[in-house]
């Protein structure tokens, strides 16, 4: 190992060269914008007042973190994240079991189950919006005779959550189905020989084997749900206190043109996502399916 041969060294250099474009692209499209938004978040920088740009340290963080709108949005985001992920896990598991066990028309069943995930979110969100709008929609008067659920907070949040669940349950199911495929058939047969009921087989055999797949599915969905934007943008545009953190960051950056405050929010979202990923990876030991058995890396 001390003295690499000329060929080995050439090979290693070639390796670096081949990686370089990817590494450069990653730095250009990921690291640079993140660092730039951190830099922006430390300034008073409002496109509307270009002459008053100045370095303000952590003032923007104080402004955002002491603001009621931000915490309302944070609460809405957490609510949507927790509720959708839990319901999607349950529904997705059911769907995965059905898709896994289907004997007749397996392809059709799987395709049908995946349709919602294949539809562009914005398009689906528009159809939800029309469906819940009085006069144009078939769902608006479902619960109350002359209700307009999208004009009030609870109704809007419920509709956003339903739209999210409808859209991403198939994705959850897909990941869980990959996990189900990991469960050895012999293990299940052995368990039933030992007299285990279906529920015991599910909880004691299938779930432990599927754990890595479940954790990955939960991690992906939690991160995804935390960044919820398009459904809210189309359904309510954040009216009636239904903004998520992404929505409020968009409003401050692109509508308010306040690069300082907007970037501060983006950085905070980035940190929150990093914390979620950290919790999943370090505490729950999430790893990609098929990675090392001990999970923790």
């Amino acid at each position: 190992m001390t003295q690499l041969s000329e060929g080995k060294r050439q090979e290693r250099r070639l390796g670096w060269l081949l990686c370089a474009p990817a590494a450069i692209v990653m730095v250009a499209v990921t690291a640079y914008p993140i660092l730039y938004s951190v830099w922006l978040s430390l300034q008073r920088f409002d496109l509307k007042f270009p002459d008053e740009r100045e370095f303000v340290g952590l003032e923007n963080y104080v402004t955002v973190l002491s603001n009621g709108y931000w915490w309302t949005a944070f609460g809405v985001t957490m609510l949507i994240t927790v509720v959708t992920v839990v319901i999607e896990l349950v529904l997705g598991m059911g769907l995965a079991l059905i898709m896994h066990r289907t004997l007749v028309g397996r392809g059709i069943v799987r395709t049908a189950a995946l349709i919602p995930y294949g539809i562009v979110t914005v398009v689906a969100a528009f159809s939800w919006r029309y469906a819940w709008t009085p006069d144009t929609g078939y769902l608006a008067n479902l619960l109350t005779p002359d209700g307009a659920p999208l004009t009030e907070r609870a109704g809007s949040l419920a509709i956003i959550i339903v739209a999210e669940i409808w859209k991403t349950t198939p994705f959850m199911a897909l990941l869980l189905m990959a996990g189900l495929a990991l469960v050895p058939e012999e293990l299940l047969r052995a368990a039933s020989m030992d007299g285990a009921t279906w529920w015991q087989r599910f909880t004691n055999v299938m779930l432990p084997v599927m754990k890595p797949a479940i954790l990955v599915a939960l991690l992906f969905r939690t991160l995804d749900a935390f960044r919820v934007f398009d459904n809210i943008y189309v359904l309510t545009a954040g009216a009636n206190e239904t903004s998520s953190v992404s929505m409020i960051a968009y409003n401050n950056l692109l509508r308010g043109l306040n690069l300082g405050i907007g970037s501060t929010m983006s950085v905070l979202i980035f940190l929150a996502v990093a914390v979620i990923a950290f919790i999943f990876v370090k505490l729950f030991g999430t790893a990609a399916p098929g990675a090392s058995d001990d999970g923790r890396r």
Partner: protein
Amino acid sequence: MGEPLKRRWRRLAAAALVTVPLAACGGQDDGGTPTINFYNPPVENMQTVIDTCNAAANGRYEIVYRVLPRGADDQRVQMVRRLAAEDDSMDVLGLDVTWTQEFAGANWIREWTGADAAEVRDGTLPGPLESATYEDKLYAAPNNTNVQLLWYRTDLVPNPPRTWDEMITQAQQLRSQGRPYQVITMGAQYEGLVVLYNTLVASAGGNILSADGRTAVLDDGAVRALDLLKRFATAGVTSPSFTNALEDPARLEFQGGNGAFQLNWPYVYPAMQAAAPDLARNVRWARYPGVDANTPSRVTIGGTNLAVSAYTRYPVESFEAARCLRNAENQKYAAINDGVPPTIESVYDAPEMAEAYPMKDVILEELQDASVRPLSPAYQNISTVMSATLSPPGDIDPDETAELLRKQIQDALESKGVLP
């Protein structure tokens, strides 16, 4: 020899990676007639006006109509994004009156000077002109304007009320007689509510911002307006959907027959004649009610202004094109065919106007001492916090709400405002 060659190759590859996509969006400048890209919201007969101007330009430039999205927010976001990126393919911009200060403050539009400015100032109504001014400089040419009127039913109301208090009393009397009584207007949490409040503040002689636009004042007049708005919302004379009503739902509700009064833009009149002709026969218009009996109302104007982008490659032609697009002849055409009230006072005297605008005298009267919304580059933020704080109007506590507004608006002016 090998090393530098490799490095050069790498640099070339990197350069290609960057320039190829850029070249694809380069200008289509062929050195011939300058193309003036006119970005404006969709307007039905705009192309005819543009054709007229192109004919008049006689080959010096050619205006091309670039239609913006229908929603005001989408229009603004598209223009803002491209101007922030110093896009030089935008020349003349059709701006909502409330965006002019913002674009001027951000140095995205050019000041109108010399003969161009003189032509715009000549004969233009003061309110629209004020909306196009930022820090005492002219930054746009008012293209069209608009004011709300009081619509009332002659079968219920013999004499139109002159003040809000009179209107509320009349509505309450009608209600006690079991007849249609509602005062229908826009009270949802959006710009319409800000317009309503701004009109009340101006009519009460109050101010939201200081004259230089740098401080939130919310003086006594502004507090009186809050008090009136609350009284109106809680007097039992509004429609049940008042706190949720936008322009068009309000119009439809009035057409439904429950309203005795409607405060709305002039477009409701032709719409009503087409959709509810029986009702329309009994509907008349009057000046928007005031706050005091002896002081006429000062109504908030809407409308659009034409500005020239700071990044245009053809400033001279752009100013000329904008002047043509909004000249008296073209404003008259737009007023008659698209229903948008002119900003040049003399156009109202044209005989054809009487047919298109039976209410033109009242419109002109209101326009002559109209009010504008707070003139500040931060208007978008101010409007957002105002609509959030004023909604629902029934929950207003005049002094407390004024204090809250003062703080939030001041924060918006200092770029500390957080938009919900």
